């Protein structure tokens, strides 16, 4: 009974250590008078966060990051899904694509930043391209293995009923892999955010990553930390949103 209540309600005990940490950092900041570039008191960070959110700068940067990460995610997701389906369904397609795919996989997506810059220049397009590339690989593999995991009897049923390829994909394959594809999408969202912010920090003058770089270069550690927390909060909320949708849609199936 007690254990059940604890599981349902929020566990406040988990907040103790972070609060102690913040408090001690604040005390250390008050005690020391030295200005440091990599250090800011929690109260200063909070003030900077309120300032940048109030001015609209952080929200503008957030929307830029989310638009690029989201577009890249959707692009990569659709390409990965459409490409992964034949790989999962047909052994021959899989054998054919094995070498090209496995040789592309070790390429770190961020290593494509220079190439993408050359092709697209600064702006949304280059960042979307890098994010999409980062997402395609995992979605490819997860789609393929989800299809391999379909109950073989179901494939035989669709054969026995005489379903054509398109009907087989839309009526059997896609509904069967939907829960696992949803998980794949959630994982890809995390990848997309990481890559988008990385591209912004290293090259692209857009979004939260760029705002953080500016804060760092103009010696505003409080703003930098505020943006860092904001990025974490954004990623966490999106993931929580999808997790909630997942358990509501698929329950224990996912």
């Amino acid at each position, binding site marked *: 009974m007690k254990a059940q209540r604890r599981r349902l309600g929020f566990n406040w005990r988990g907040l103790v250590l972070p609060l102690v940490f913040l408090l001690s950092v604040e005390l250390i900041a008050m005690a020391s008078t030295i200005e440091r570039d990599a250090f800011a008191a929690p109260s200063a960070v909070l003030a900077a966060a309120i300032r940048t959110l109030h001015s609209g700068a952080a929200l503008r940067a957030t929307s830029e990051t989310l638009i690029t990460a989201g577009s890249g995610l959707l692009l990569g997701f659709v390409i990965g899904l459409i490409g992964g389906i034949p790989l999962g369904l047909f052994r021959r397609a899989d054998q054919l694509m094995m070498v090209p795919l496995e040789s592309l996989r070790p390429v770190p997506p961020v290593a494509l930043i220079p190439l993408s810059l050359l092709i697209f220049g600064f702006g949304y397009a280059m960042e979307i391209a890098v994010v999409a590339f980062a997402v395609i690989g995992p979605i490819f593999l997860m789609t393929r293995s989800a299809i391999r995991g379909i109950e073989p009897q179901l494939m035989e049923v669709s054969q*026995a009923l005489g379903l054509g390829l398109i*009907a087989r994909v839309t009526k059997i394959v896609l509904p069967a892999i939907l829960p696992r594809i949803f998980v794949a999408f959630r994982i890809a969202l995390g990848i997309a955010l990481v890559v988008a912010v990385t591209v912004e920090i290293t090259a692209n003058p857009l979004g939260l990553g760029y705002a953080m770089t500016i804060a760092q270069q103009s010696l505003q550690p409080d703003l930098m930390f505020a943006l860092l927390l904001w990025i974490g909060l954004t990623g966490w909320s999106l993931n929580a949103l999808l997790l909630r949708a997942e358990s509501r849609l698929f329950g224990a199936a996912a």
Partner: protein
Amino acid sequence: MAPAPAAADPVLAASGVSLDLGDTAVLRDIDLVVARGEVVCIVGASGCGKTSLLRLLAGLLHPTAGAISYEGYPVRRPRSDIAFVFQDYGRALLPWRNAAQNVSLALEAIGVPRLARGKRIEELLHKVGLDGHAEKLPRELSGGMQQRLQIARCLAQEPSVLLMDEPFGALDAMTRQALQDETLAIAAASRASIVFVTHDLDEAIYLGDRVLGLAGSPGRIGETVAVRLPRPRDQLTTRENPEFVRLRRALHDFIGTVQSDRHAR
């Protein structure tokens, strides 16, 4: 002696069919003719190729030698006039579709327009005794009901041949007998032929016009028994009929010799 009904009006035939899967010889020189409306049961020890033979007849497998023909035309892939009832009903139904939608899948496959589906589905569910369960998901149905649902889905194709792979093997005795009688009634009403694979000799004799004993590895047709028991059959009187007992004896001896042969080797 009446002639074997096979000569009357052949629907489905296997001639000289052999099947190898990889390096394993599964079936050798199978000749089989199924007449319209006939119930042919195939018995045999597990691993003798019963299910493979059924899959060949369905066009789900391709013979290494010989040919399968339906009304004189070669069977190269599954066709809607031949329906397949899988043994494992739990895995043959789409778990995300409710009963009505599962039946609908077969109608969608043969291109029945959406508007015409509803009434057909209702009739089919009624035919297998699942009225009032249309909205339920397969996991909310008992084993017997799930198998009924799969049969309804097969009937949606309006098949001339029903291929059934140990369809009642996992059900309890009462449900099994009820489904046996329903299957016979459905077959009689639709004039469909049935090829029924089972390892239960009583079931084979009770249902069949003919019982084929498959034996050996690779499997061959080792024994053909004509069942001349009157129809409609009845779970009590038919099973007490001396002819029933005699046939069971004969088939039992056949299976027995096959198995002792196998052990001797």
